[in-house]
């Protein structure tokens, strides 16, 4: 099965490793990520204002493209995933929003018919973690790995419907499928500070260090994430290494270049 794919602003440069590993692993697992044409930046944060319409148009265009191609729209970046899933939900549930969007341009009329999936959801729900585990060539045996969820994948769960927002397991299941040991540390879904690292860096450092101390206390060797901004904030602390989840995936599947 093939999927439409939305990379987002960071995956071609600063987070190129997140995408490269995902593409190689997909081929090894028997699916392809088909990048949609002329995609535009999702804006990185979901616009919460009820009157935010223009800010959501890039997402609408991507969602429409996927709907027209009749393929689920897959994302790798937590933030893109968050924005696209929530805008899709707006289009499906909010008639005023739909009508306003259609008034910008008839070609943008969209009813929320696309399906937005995170790559991890593809692994869980389409490939299956049991099958993934059978495909592993170089298991991560003995590696103690902390899943770092952060905020964007999980909350608000009523829209994201990704996993249990307080006690998620998808990334731990992923780690176990690759043969590694998942370190279940309590702060794995707490905020790293996100964009506040630009205006109040000390605060982002404080939050990131709390998360790292919690994972280190339980002997995690490194953390994995799906979010370039989490990776940036966590990496800056020079405590535990942090990798994209697709980097350990390509390692376990032995498709790393």
């Amino acid at each position, binding site marked *: 099965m093939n999927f439409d794919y939305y990379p987002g*602003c960071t995956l071609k440069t600063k987070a190129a490793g997140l995408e490269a590993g995902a593409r190689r692993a997909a081929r090894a697992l028997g699916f392809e990520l088909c990048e949609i044409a002329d995609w535009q930046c999702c804006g990185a944060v979901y616009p919460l204002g009820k009157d935010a319409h223009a800010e959501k148009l890039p997402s609408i265009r991507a969602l429409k493209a996927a709907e027209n191609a009749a393929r689920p729209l897959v994302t790798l970046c937590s933030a893109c995933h968050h924005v696209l899933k929530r805008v899709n939900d707006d289009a499906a549930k909010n008639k005023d929003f739909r009508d306003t969007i259609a008034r910008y341009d008839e070609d943008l009329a969209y009813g929320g018919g696309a399906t937005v999936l995170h790559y991890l959801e593809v692994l869980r729900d389409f490939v299956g973690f049991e099958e993934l585990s059978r495909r592993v060539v170089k298991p991560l045996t003995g590696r103690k790995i902390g899943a770092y969820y952060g*905020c964007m994948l999980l909350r608000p*769960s009523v829209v994201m419907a990704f996993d249990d927002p307080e006690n998620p397991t998808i990334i731990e299941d992923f780690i176990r499928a690759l043969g590694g040991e998942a370190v279940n540390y309590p702060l794995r879904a*707490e905020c790293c500070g996100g964009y506040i690292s630009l205006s109040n860096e000390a605060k982002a450092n404080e939050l990131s260090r709390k998360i790292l101390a919690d994972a280190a206390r339980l002997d995690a060797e490194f953390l994995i994430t799906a979010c*370039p901004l989490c990776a940036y904030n966590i990496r800056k602390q020079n405590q535990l290494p942090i990798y994209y989840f697709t980097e350990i995936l390509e390692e376990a599947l032995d498709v790393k270049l």
Partner: protein
Amino acid sequence: MLNYEYQLEEILDISGVDIGRCMKCGRCSASCPSYDEMEHRPHQFITYLARGDVAALLESDALWQCLACFSCVQRCPRDVKPANLIEAVRLAAIRPKGAEFLTVEEVEAKFAPDMPQQLLVAAFRKYMR
């Protein structure tokens, strides 16, 4: 002179929040990772708006400390969505001309080569119109 009555109406409207639903349990503030940084805590945003005191919030640094992590939204037992309310006040603060929290020049000055684009785009969205 700012018309706060108009701003109160605008804030409540664009937030989509019904502040009457809040039962003041404080779970939003207890869940907030920026609690220590805020002189007005998430549950207090609702109190201030209920008494029409928009000025206190618009001048507050607390506005800029919300991380949009959605812990408050997730955990609110009454589905009030405090983050949406804080965002609405923030939008009321940055929308007037020249009222951005960070200017393009200030963002540029803070730029580091390893910063993900995601951070810069988020900052432009959150701190300026």
